[in-house]
Structure formats: structure tokens, C-alpha cells
């Protein structure tokens, strides 16, 4: 069930840029056309002469919003149009406002500039790229390299060793909803309508940039047309938009063109993963080394957290992680769905597959043999870990027992090679501090305003369902408000903590509401009569923090900063788990790779909303297939930036690429983690999916691929 399905299908749901305000003007950006350098001059005369143009601005007095992972609010610290430095191709150099979008676009295109070019480094290995050891460059405890025992020595002493280096390209999330929105001023109050996963960071980031009080900023983001991390912080167009809107005294709308979103928002950075495993003759893994080089920008250090998950996948006695950051001439990369976990699992789970072949053991059996209850890093128990059940149930649903392990041994009637691959994945269960306000109205409806953003993942449906089930009222009688700073804090919704963080405060709000309505702690409630008995609508507030999280996290969240904790909690560690089983078929002559069926079984604690949960997993699997077989953001060293910046050239999956994806859940609550028993799901859905595809391609063809995407030229 999706409570907003009707609104979405009929176009009634209003996304950020859908606002049409009286007197609204339209903006467009002009972008730098050099890979890096200094701006010598900008010629705006032709732009200013375009009929209908109201303003052409090239310089703004705006403070840096600060980088979101450096205590700030922006996707990067660099605010364009504040000095003459060009850090990357596609950086905005001017903004035009006009009476129509067409005039604004025409004028923006008429802007020319002169640059003093500087050499660029765009790849991990480019001359001029600077490599930093992360734990030295960012000395924060949670970014320190994970080490248990002497992993290198254990591996050297192990009877079986295996290693591999895997390359992952940069990728872009390309959500359907383009970046952009509408801003206007109501007196001294700035109102921003923009699709974001982090309304509060927009609010406080703009306050910092503009030097005004956050109390005078409202951000409204009731629907987000896909965020996937690209909308998790303040983007660089909003500050300038707010200033031009103020100057003109009119609402202004800006929607970035698709190609512009490839440079004015984050992306998944390129990474290189080197994995070493030691094992005994049965394939029992003794130790692992995971070394990562990850791309970042020159102006920000986007922290790599690949080892957090790979260290927890199996029961190891020794582990060594090492993460380095490579500074290149790009905008700051960021959190694209399963940001580290998908690339690192693509590597780790292929190495594990190789191990299974090396010791002659079935890959499912080998994984089961390496299962554990205990986190190798902290020594603490996992609160819940049903990955073995995911593997067993997945194997059964898939028919894994029918697999001939020999590569190239299975063929379809048309001669296609059939490959079956498996991989598991995990994702840390972090928790954010959240607030909820619940109101029972005289009409019997219950309104719930809570920290959260609806990015299509279905948080509104999940909350409505939870409230409806708790009170025994129709889902239609629950109104859920999210993404709006006028009704709640609106902490960042990302990292799969959204539902697991919002539901606990809604849950405790319900207990509170029942008290104020003077009804029993459990059981169905006749809301309207209960409200009538009280004599007026009843409003209650509740909040929640993660296990062991200090209560001041709530105050921290209210200032627009991250206020999360996990996945290590007092006495336990919490991750979500998944197992993917993938069939690929490789055509006999032209070698096209198709994925006719996938079975994915997830352990996300209690399934809070079956329909939207299954969609999340299907979406994650589709992303995994896309990553494995298609997606790569291409770079042309001569020019900088990303060149395949359209939906035509950046090959996201299309419907015709998607076939059967069977989803199942273990559906066992994790009450140690939170009172509603719900763990995260959106990200773990993707983790391991690309690896399972790659393992299936290996099974089909006998060749292992160390670089994504695996395209026709690599298998022909």
C-alpha cells in the first residue's frame, strides 16, 4: 500500500519545482567550460540583451555552507560565484533570471568567459592527483582504519590465500526529479520549495550562507522525486537563487538541466578495492585485508567507509582495513545509494566466490560456513543477523541445488550460456535522533508530523500504516507530514535510517497520545469519541534517540547537523543483511548479457510496510544490475567534467532490462535495536547485487571481471 499513490499517479503530488507562484521569474545557470583554472572575465552583455532578462549575476556575497561531512551543510564546501577559482568543469559562473524559462536559458547560453587553464587530474592514477591516508587526513575516531589482530601475518600463514584488485567507475544517481526548486521571500522570511532529503541542513546552511537567522527560513519538501544521496545536503544553486529573489522581490524558480545535474550535485566516486583473504582448506576464512583508494575533490575530503561493512561480513579472527583518498578536479563526490558498500561488496564477494572455487566448495555452503554471531571488530554480538536464513531461503526459492558448479556448463535451449551467482551484502544500521508531533482531531483523523523525507521509498506509507495498525483506524484517517521545517526538525533522511529512526518517536508519540486521550495502552481506539470526551483536539510531542545515544543529539539535530549513532551500540552491533541469487544468460554469438531472474531475501528486522519494502529491494537490485552491466560516468581527460551527462548516454536501466525479481523477507523483529523492531532496508537492497551478477557472469563464461561495468566488449 502506498498512501500517496493516487496523488502521484494523477499528478496532484506537488514536488519542489511544481510550485507556481504569482509573479514567478525563472532562472538558469551558465557553467564553466574549462576543467580547472581561473576565471579572467565573464561577458554577460549578450545575455543582458536577451528580451525578458531581469538580472544576470556573476558574483554573490555568500559564505561557504561548509561540507556536510566536515561539520557543515553543503554537498561541498565550495560555493561557486564567490571568487575566480574554477575547480571543475560545470561549475556555475553566472545565474540569469528572466520572465520565461526560455529567455533565461537563451541568455545563460549567451554568456561567454575567458579562463586561465590549469592542468586537471580526473582519475585515481592521474598525474597531479594527490593521495592521502584517510586516518591521517581526517583524524576522527570513526574514520580510523579498522584493525583486529595481525591480518597480514594470519593470511601469510594460511593454507589458502586469494587476492584481487577491483576497479569501480564513478557513477551518477540521475534521479527522475531534476535538482531545482522555487524560492521566495515573505517579508524577511525565506521560503524554499526544493526536493531534498535534508530540509534542516538547507535551512541552517542557508542561514550560514546568507548571514540570517534560521528562524527566518522555511524549507518545504513534501515529496522528493528520487534522492539517492544527491539531495542529502545544500546544493550550490539555492544560495544565489535566494539572493536574486530578494533583489528582484519576486519568487524565482530554477530547474537544472539534466547535464547540469552531473556536475552540480554529488556522485559516486571512482574507487579501487584490493582484497586479500586467508582461509583453511575447507574455505573457513581466517583473515581479510581490504585496502581502498577512493576519489574525492580538491576542496573536500569525502570520507571513505568501505571497510565498515566488509569487516562484518564473515567471522574473521583478523582484519586490516586501509582507506586512502585521492584528490582530483571534480565537484565533491558523495553518498550515492549503498555508496561504499556496493563497490566494496562487488570486490569482496567476488573474492569469496573465487575462494569457493579454489577450495571446491559450493558458494552458498562456503558462506554459511563462515557465518558468525559476533562482530569481529568489536567482539560484540550482532543484535540480529539472519543472513544464513537469507541464504538458505534464497537458495531454495532460486533452485540453487540444480546448479552445476562448473563454469560454462549450463546452457539454455537457444545456446545461451547460463550463469548462476550468489552474493551477500550488509549495511550498517545507524539511528538518527527524531521528533514527532501527533494530533488527534475532532474528526477522528490523526496527523503525524515527523522527522523524515518522502523520497519515494514510502516513509509516509510506512508511518501511516504503523499508526493505523496501532490505533485500529483506517489508513486514510492518518495524515503524515514530512520534509517540512515548519512542522518538525527534518533531520537528514539517508543511510537507511529514515524509517527505523522515525517510527520509534511515532511509536512513543502514540503511547503518549493514548494517555492524553485517556484510552488503553493497546487495542483499537475510537478516536473521534475519545477526542470528544476530552473536549478538544489533542496534540502530543515525542522524540527518540538511538540506543545509547546522548539526548543532546536532539539539540544537535535541531541545528541542521547530523545526529546519528551506530552501528555499534552499547552491548551490541546492528546491521541489515541480504542475499542475492542471480541468473544471467550470455547470448551465444553476440554475447549480450541478460538477467532473466533474481531472488533476493533480506533481513531488515520487522517488515514495516510490505509493499514499499518489496519495491525498495527491487529498486536496489535494478541498481545493482545497472552498476554491474551498464553504468559509468565517463571522463574526457582533455576537457574535465563528465561527458555522458544525459539519460541517453548514461545508460541507467530501462524497463526492458528488468525481468523477474523475487523478493522475500525474513521478517524477524530486532527489538534490541529499537522498540518497533525495524532495521534499514533501502541501501542494503543494492549491496551485493552487482557482485552476484559478476559471479553469475563468471559462472556462465569462466571469466572473472575486475572492473565495472561488464560490457559487451569485455565478454565477446
Amino acid at each position: 500500500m502506498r498512501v500517496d499513490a493516487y496523488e502521484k499517479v494523477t499528478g496532484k503530488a506537488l514536488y519542489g519545482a511544481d510550485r507556481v507562484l504569482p509573479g514567478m521569474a525563472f532562472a538558469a545557470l551558465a557553467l564553466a567550460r574549462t576543467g580547472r583554472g581561473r576565471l579572467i572575465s565573464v561577458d554577460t552583455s549578450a545575455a543582458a540583451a536577451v528580451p525578458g532578462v531581469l538580472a544576470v549575476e556573476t558574483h554573490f556575497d555568500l559564505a561557504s555552507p561548509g561540507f556536510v561531512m566536515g561539520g557543515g551543510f553543503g554537498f561541498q564546501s565550495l560555493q561557486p560565484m564567490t571568487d575566480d577559482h574554477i575547480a571543475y568543469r560545470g561549475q556555475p559562473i553566472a545565474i540569469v533570471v528572466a520572465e520565461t524559462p526560455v529567455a533565461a536559458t537563451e541568455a545563460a547560453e549567451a554568456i561567454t568567459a575567458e579562463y586561465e587553464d590549469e592542468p586537471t587530474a580526473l582519475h585515481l592514477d592521474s598525474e597531479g592527483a594527490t593521495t592521502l591516508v584517510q586516518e591521517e587526513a581526517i583524524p576522527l575516531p570513526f574514520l580510523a582504519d579498522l584493525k583486529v589482530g595481525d591480518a597480514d601475518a594470519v593470511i601469510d600463514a594460511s593454507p589458502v590465500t586469494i587476492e584481487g584488485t577491483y576497479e569501480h567507475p564513478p557513477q551518477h544517481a540521475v534521479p527522475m526529479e531534476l535538482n531545482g526548486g522555487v524560492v521566495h521571500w515573505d517579508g524577511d522570511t525565506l521560503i524554499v520549495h526544493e526536493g531534498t532529503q535534508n530540509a534542516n541542513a538547507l535551512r541552517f546552511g542557508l542561514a550560514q550562507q546568507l548571514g540570517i537567522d534560521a528562524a527566518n527560513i522555511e524549507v518545504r519538501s513534501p515529496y522528493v522525486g528520487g534522492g539517492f544521496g544527491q539531495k542529502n545536503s545544500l546544493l550550490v544553486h539555492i544560495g544565489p537563487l535566494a539572493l536574486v529573489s530578494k533583489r528582484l522581490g519576486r519568487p524565482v524558480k530554477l530547474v537544472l538541466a539534466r547535464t547540469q545535474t552531473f556536475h552540480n550535485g554529488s556522485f559516486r566516486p571512482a574507487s579501487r578495492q584490493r582484497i586479500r583473504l586467508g582461509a583453511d582448506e575447507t574455505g573457513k576464512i581466517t583473515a581479510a585485508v581490504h585496502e581502498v583508494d577512493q576519489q574525492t575533490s580538491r576542496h573536500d575530503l569525502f570520507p571513505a567507509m568501505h571497510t565498515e561493512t566488509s569487516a562484518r561480513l564473515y567471522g574473521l579472527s583478523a582484519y586490516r582495513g586501509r582507506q586512502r583518498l585521492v584528490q582530483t578536479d571534480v565537484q565533491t563526490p558523495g553518498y550515492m545509494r549503498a555508496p561504499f558498500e556496493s563497490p566494496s561488496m562487488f570486490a569482496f564477494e567476488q573474492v569469496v566466490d573465487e575462494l569457493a572455487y579454489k577450495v571446491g566448495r559450493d558458494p552458498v555452503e562456503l558462506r554459511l560456513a563462515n557465518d558468525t554471531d559476533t562482530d569481529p571488530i568489536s567482539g560484540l554480538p550482532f543484535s540480529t543477523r539472519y543472513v544464513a536464513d537469507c541464504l538458505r531461503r534464497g537458495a531454495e526459492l532460486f533452485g540453487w541445488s540444480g546448479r552445476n558448479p562448473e563454469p560454462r556448463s549450463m546452457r539454455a535451449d537457444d545456446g545461451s550460456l547460463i550463469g548462476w551467482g550468489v552474493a551477500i551484502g550488509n549495511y550498517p544500521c545507524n539511528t538518527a535522533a527524531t521528533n514527532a508531533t501527533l494530533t488527534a482531531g475532532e474528526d477522528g483523523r490523526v496527523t503525524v508530523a515527523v522527522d523524515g523525507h518522502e523520497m519515494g521509498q514510502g516513509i509516509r506509507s510506512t508511518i501511516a500504516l504503523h499508526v493505523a495498525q496501532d490505533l485500529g483506524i483506517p489508513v486514510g484517517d492518518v495524515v503524515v507530514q514530512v520534509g517540512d521545517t515548519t512542522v518538525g526538525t527534518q533531520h537528514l533522511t539517508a543511510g537507511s535510517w529514515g524509517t527505523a529512526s522515525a517510527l520509534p518517536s511515532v511509536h512513543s508519540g502514540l503511547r503518549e497520545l493514548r494517555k492524553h486521550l485517556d484510552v488503553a495502552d493497546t487495542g483499537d481506539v475510537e478516536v473521534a469519541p475519545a477526542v470528544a470526551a476530552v473536549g478538544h483536539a489533542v496534540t502530543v510531542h515525542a522524540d527518540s534517540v538511538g540506543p545509547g545515544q546522548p539526548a543532546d543529539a536532539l539539540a544537535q539535530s535541531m541545528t541542521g547537523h547530523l545526529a546519528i549513532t551506530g552501528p555499534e551500540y552499547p552491548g551490541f552491533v546492528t546491521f541489515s543483511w541480504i542475499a542475492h541469487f542471480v541468473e544471467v544468460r550470455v547470448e551465444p554469438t553476440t554475447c549480450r548479457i541478460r538477467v532473466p531472474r533474481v531472488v533476493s531475501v533480506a533481513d531488515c528486522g520487522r517488515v514495516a510496510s510490505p509493499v514499499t519494502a518489496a519495491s525498495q529491494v527491487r529498486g536496489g537490485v535494478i541498481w545493482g544490475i545497472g552498476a554491474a552491466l551498464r553504468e559509468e560516468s565517463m571522463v574526457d581527460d582533455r576537457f574535465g567534467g563528465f561527458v555522458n551527462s544525459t539519460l541517453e548516454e548514461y545508460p541507467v536501466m530501462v524497463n526492458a532490462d528488468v525481468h523477474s525479481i523475487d523478493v522475500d523477507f525474513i521478517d524477524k523483529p530486532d527489538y534490541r535495536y529499537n522498540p518497533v523492531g525495524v532495521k534499514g532496508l533501502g541501501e542494503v537492497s543494492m549491496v551485493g547485487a552487482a557482485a552476484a551478477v559478476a559471479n553469475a557472469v563468471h559462472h556462465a563464461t569462466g571469466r572473472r571481471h575486475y572492473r565495472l561495468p561488464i560490457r559487451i566488449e569485455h565478454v565477446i
Partner: protein
Amino acid sequence: MRPFAYAAPGSVDDAVAVLRDAVPGTKILAGGTTLYDLMKLGVEAPPAVVDVLRLPELAGITVTDSELVFGAGVRMADVSDHPVVRADYPALAESIWRAASQQLRNMATLGGNLLQRTRCGYFRGTDFACNKRNPGSGCAAIEGHDRHHALLGASSLCSATYAGDFAIALRAFDAVVDVVGPRGERPIALADLHVEPGEDPSREHVLDVDELIVRIRVPLTPAGRGSTYLKIRDRESYAFALASAAVGLVIDGQGVVTESRIALGGVATRPWRAVEAEQSLLGQPLTAESARRAGEIAFADARPGRTNRFRIELGIRTVADAVRTAGERAVR
């Protein structure tokens, strides 16, 4: 995008008159899925467009006793849905429904489809050197991303691929386009419509600026039934060909190939007919070896760039597979 003048004449005669008197650079507009796109990108900037989308003479698909006749204004979607085309010329239908997306096919016309422009990324981005867009400026693709660039028919100035699908199938069937201009009507064989880049990559076809395609005629041939259009691409829909082949065959009672037509797409600077490959199949039974051999002959002169060598082998296999499918469908 710059402002431009717009005219929508009511008949072909009026359209020709408007075009004859038009300011230099005026462009014919049909569905706009190429033209408007390039105007938005700043690659084309016509001062005026003449809309031919609704001209009655450009509408309709008819089947005579010697030809299939497509109005140049027929939408792509209407061709792929046409029962006769689907049954008797599967290659034509497949070349259309494997092109673009349903939304584009609902809007785009056949005339516009034939004259669509290349998808070379350096052509479509005004920041780059491109001899086609800006004659004499150089070619950014030579040292750049050339994964999709042409293996056949390139010159030292330009190796941009002719990206369309329908023209490939038409080329296999010896189609003719009828063109109307101020000097009246003239037929042009599809084989002569597009030109290789040679010394002037900006010139892509032989039409004069005031000439209009009114219809496309496809001579009836039994090879129509025994035909297929195989398109290999990076995803299963909404992508241009890495390699494609339109193949039509007639096979007699003894299993001997008596008529053979092979055209290549996605690999050449214009719709490409592989005459020697066709001939290699004639007069003998079809085998896996002869199909492969036809592919090898078709690509014998292929010249790869930096990153597209794999498409020679892919192209060979695409031809081989298409020949096999056409053989299965061929009338016996």
C-alpha cells in the same frame, strides 16, 4: 535556444513555395525530436522552421501491387503497428520498434528519421572541436571517446556514425524517396540519399535546402518476409546500435539462397549495404559458416579507432545472427 520564425503551410505546394522564398538556414520541421533537440543544445540555430508535420500529402501507409508506400509524415509508431509491414517486412517493423522510445516514436516521423543527425557527443556539445558542426575546427573524437564511432565510411575529418535504424532496413530493400522542390518532384534511391563525410562532414545528404521528402517507396520483394533487423546495444531499449544488421533472404525449395540483402547500421557513416557479403551467400545453402563468412566479408574493410575495435567482431556476429534468423523466416 534563439527565437525563430515558424510557418505551417497547408499543402506540399505551399511548403515548397515557403521554402523557396525562405531566409537562408531555414529548416524543415517534422516531429522535432532531432531538430528541436539540437536547437536546444545550440548545435542548430535556424532563423525559421517550416512545419510539415500535418501536410495531408505526407500522411498514410499504402500497399500497392508493386510497392509499400510510406508518407514522409507517418509517425514511427504507426509503422511498427502496421499489420502488413509487420507480417511481410519484419525487418522494417523491427528497425522502427527497436529505435528510440515509445514516446519518441509517437512523435517522430519517417522523413525526419531518415535525416536525423549523428549522436557523436562532440557534435552535440558546442564546447568541442567538430568538423561537422563547425567546419575546419577539427575532430575531438579522434583522440576522445570513439566507442560508438564508425568503422566504415569514415574520413580523416569525421568518423561520426549514422545512427538511425529505419534507413538501414530501407537500404536493404532498395527503397526510394520521392522529393519535391521548386523544380518539381524527383526520386532518389535511398542508396544515394546519404553521403559519406569525405572532405565535407557538414554535408550529410543530397537534398537541396528547399526540397522536401514526401514519401518513401519500398519495392515488394519476397525477401521481405525472410527478413530481420538485429540491433545490438548497451541496453534493451532506448539506445542506439553498437552494431545492427538488416537482412532479407529468399531460399528456394532446395535450400539454396536465391536472393540476399544485407545492410549494416550503427557501424558506418551512412546506411551501409554489404554487397559482397550478400553475394557470398547466393547460390548455396545457408550454414553457420556461410553466415559468419558473410559477416567477415561485410567488415573486411572496417577501420577501428581507439576504443571501438570490439565492434568489428560484434558486427560480424551481428550479421551472422541476423542471416541465421532471416534464413529461418525465409520463404521456401
